[in-house]
């Protein structure tokens, strides 16, 4: 096999497999790489994946379904990149994505990834649900279509289609209405943001989505975007400028923090709970926004805020990144990162686990059920907590 195009052929051998990539920011355990935490075979560590990729490039091992599963079990959470002490650490995640790209180009990817990408090609969302149903979440909310309002509220696929995601999408819409924010949505004309498509190694599809979205936004005169999902936020903030799509992109927690600070949003209704917060990778490690969600929680009367042992850039990923909220390569075990994470949340004594990402919300809520912790811990999106604090029914 020849993978002469592999972009990182001259650097991938430099991973020593020392294993720093497995840790959170301190050394409390070796389970901060979600895939390694789940499987605990060296192959599933970042170093293992890099060595296997190189062995594949060098023809020492053949492509196999198992190899594809190992590579696709990477959630792109960026823990490895933050922890690797070596100078090429900025590229280790890119190496993984490039390896996935090789698989995409050869057409040899896990069946769920194939389904994910084909669904997006066809219906603009990973679920394969009709494009015509994308706006069903907003029924009865009175949320307007975008037509030159200050903000484009970009909902994303999980917010548009997942039942739980839809609830947060609606609530955030209501919170924005309550704060008097001028905003509109794209409804059925909204298309996938492509963030996970990129992380799955489907570069061209990502480019097409980015180009189409940029063209659509520009055509509508969009200047400011507020996103429900940190995944959308990441793509639009960091990748779309490469497609001449320079917008003022905010994650909703950033906008809400500002609204609360300047008095635009009254949260005096309060929220009585002991709350801990799970950093979503695409808000945290990818964009280093650790403070806005915490500031919101701290501003709400009645919230008693506690940190989990692993937090901020040492947070454990919920296991849903890199398309894994759909691919589910990391599910099905008490070692699944989401289940580890909710156990950790429980250890803080919190009764509410706050999230700021619809993917994390669905992953962690399922994990709470799987762990049988429903009576101890509730997973709530910050939009829902804020919704309650500003007394939205």
């Amino acid at each position, binding site marked *: 096999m020849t993978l002469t195009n592999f972009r990182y052929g001259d650097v991938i051998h430099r991973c020593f497999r020392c294993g720093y990539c497995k840790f959170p920011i301190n050394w409390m355990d070796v389970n901060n790489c979600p895939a390694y935490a789940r499987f605990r075979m060296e192959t599933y560590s970042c170093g293992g994946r890099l060595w296997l990729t190189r062995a594949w490039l060098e023809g020492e091992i053949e492509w196999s379904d198992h190899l594809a599963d190992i590579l696709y079990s990477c959630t792109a959470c960026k823990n490895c990149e933050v922890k690797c002490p070596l100078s090429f650490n900025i590229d280790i995640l890119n190496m993984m994505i490039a390896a996935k790209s090789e698989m995409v180009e050869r057409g040899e990817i*896990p*069946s*769920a990834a194939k*389904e994910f990408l084909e669904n997006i090609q066809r219906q603009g969302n990973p679920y394969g649900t009709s494009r015509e149903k994308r706006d069903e979440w907003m029924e009865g909310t009175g949320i307007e279509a975008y037509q030159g309002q200050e903000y484009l509220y970009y909902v994303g696929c999980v917010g548009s289609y997942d039942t739980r995601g839809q609830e947060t999408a609606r609530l955030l819409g209501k919170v924005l209405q309550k704060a008097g924010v001028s905003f509109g949505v794209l409804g059925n004309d909204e298309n996938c943001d492509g963030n996970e498509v990129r992380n799955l190694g489907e570069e061209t599809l990502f480019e097409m989505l980015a180009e189409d979205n940029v063209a659509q936004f520009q055509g509508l005169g969009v200047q400011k975007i507020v996103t429900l999902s940190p995944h959308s936020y990441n793509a639009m903030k960091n990748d779309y400028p490469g497609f001449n799509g320079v917008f003022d992109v905010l994650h909703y927690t950033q906008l809400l923090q500002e609204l609360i600070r300047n008095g635009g949003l009254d949260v005096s209704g309060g929220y009585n709970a002991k709350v801990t917060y799970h950093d979503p990778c695409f808000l945290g490690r990818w964009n280093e926004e650790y403070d806005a969600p915490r500031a919101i929680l701290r501003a709400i009367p009645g919230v008693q805020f506690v940190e989990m042992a692993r937090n901020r850039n040492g947070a454990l990923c919920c296991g849903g990144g890199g398309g894994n909220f*759909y*691919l*589910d*390569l990391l*599910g*099905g075990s008490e070692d699944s990162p989401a289940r580890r994470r909710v156990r950790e949340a429980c250890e803080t004594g919190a009764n509410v686990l706050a999230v700021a990402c619809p993917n994390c919300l669905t992953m962690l809520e*399922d994990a709470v*059920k*799987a762990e*049988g912790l429903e009576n101890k811990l509730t997973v709530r999106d910050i939009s829902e907590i804020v919704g309650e604090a500003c007394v939205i029914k």
Partner: protein
Amino acid sequence: MSSILVVAEHRNQTLADVSYQVLSKGRQLADQAQMELLAAVAGVDIDAYAKELTRWADRVIIVNNDQLEEPLAEPYQKLIAHLIREIRPGIVLMGHSSFAMDLVPSLSVELGIPLVTDCVDIFWQNGDILVTRSIYNGKANASYSFAQSETILITGRVGEFPVEEGQRQGWIEEIEFAFEEECDYKKFEGYLEVEAAGVDITQAEVLVSVGRGIKEKKNLEIVEELARVLGGVVSCSRPVVDYGWLPSERQVGLSGKTVQPKLYLGLGISGAFQHVVGMKGARMTVAINKDAKAPIFSVANYGIVDDVLKVVPALVNKISELKGRTE
């Protein structure tokens, strides 16, 4: 129209169920139009079949020929073409089996006669025969009429026509038929039966059956767990075998096994007819599927519209709890 001819199919010393089904339909159509119903059966040692068929058919044509012992398309095409030319039936009716699928298209071309396959209904309308087909994987129906033709070819969907007890006592007529030359370009090499290597799903009281809704092979684990707490075994629909997640011996449906368990729990199975045909004998059917409109819900007694991966772990817990309480 003169007559309706049903071509019966047999293998392993058994007449195919679908042959009885279309025969019953043929009888009904013939009665409605006061036509003669003919049945044809060919092979060796076929007298018993012929006798069976006389309960429905007015006349049973038998052709003793060892080249027709196995249901193979090429020799049968020659035979049926011959019969049509000789008998000139108005309708030739067969079950929509893998045998017919290999046979009737070329037959229709050879004779230049119309063909509609896999019909779920066949009926008279103003003296014309019309058929209904299920299209878009069961999401719509389409009815068709035929252009003027001395003979038309129809195949009927497996399991779609109820077998009504035959009341006739038709007579048997043997026809001589010989092949002019042997077919040397397509050689039948034999059958390969899928062996049950351990698990026999047809014997299970409880089947936990999975479809592509489980997304990943890995998720079979939790399904196995559910089967374990229910004391059943795991079976599946065709895509699961296609993906290589389970061996074909676990497949329920037309090309797999026919099962009649006490409980059939369909997980992430949409319920295409090819699958349903294999499980509709279950005494109790429960379906869990994300798509509220999935056809499986119209054969199930109970349904849950949700992601199986969310419900199954909870179900395992609940069942274990209930079991724990009684033990």
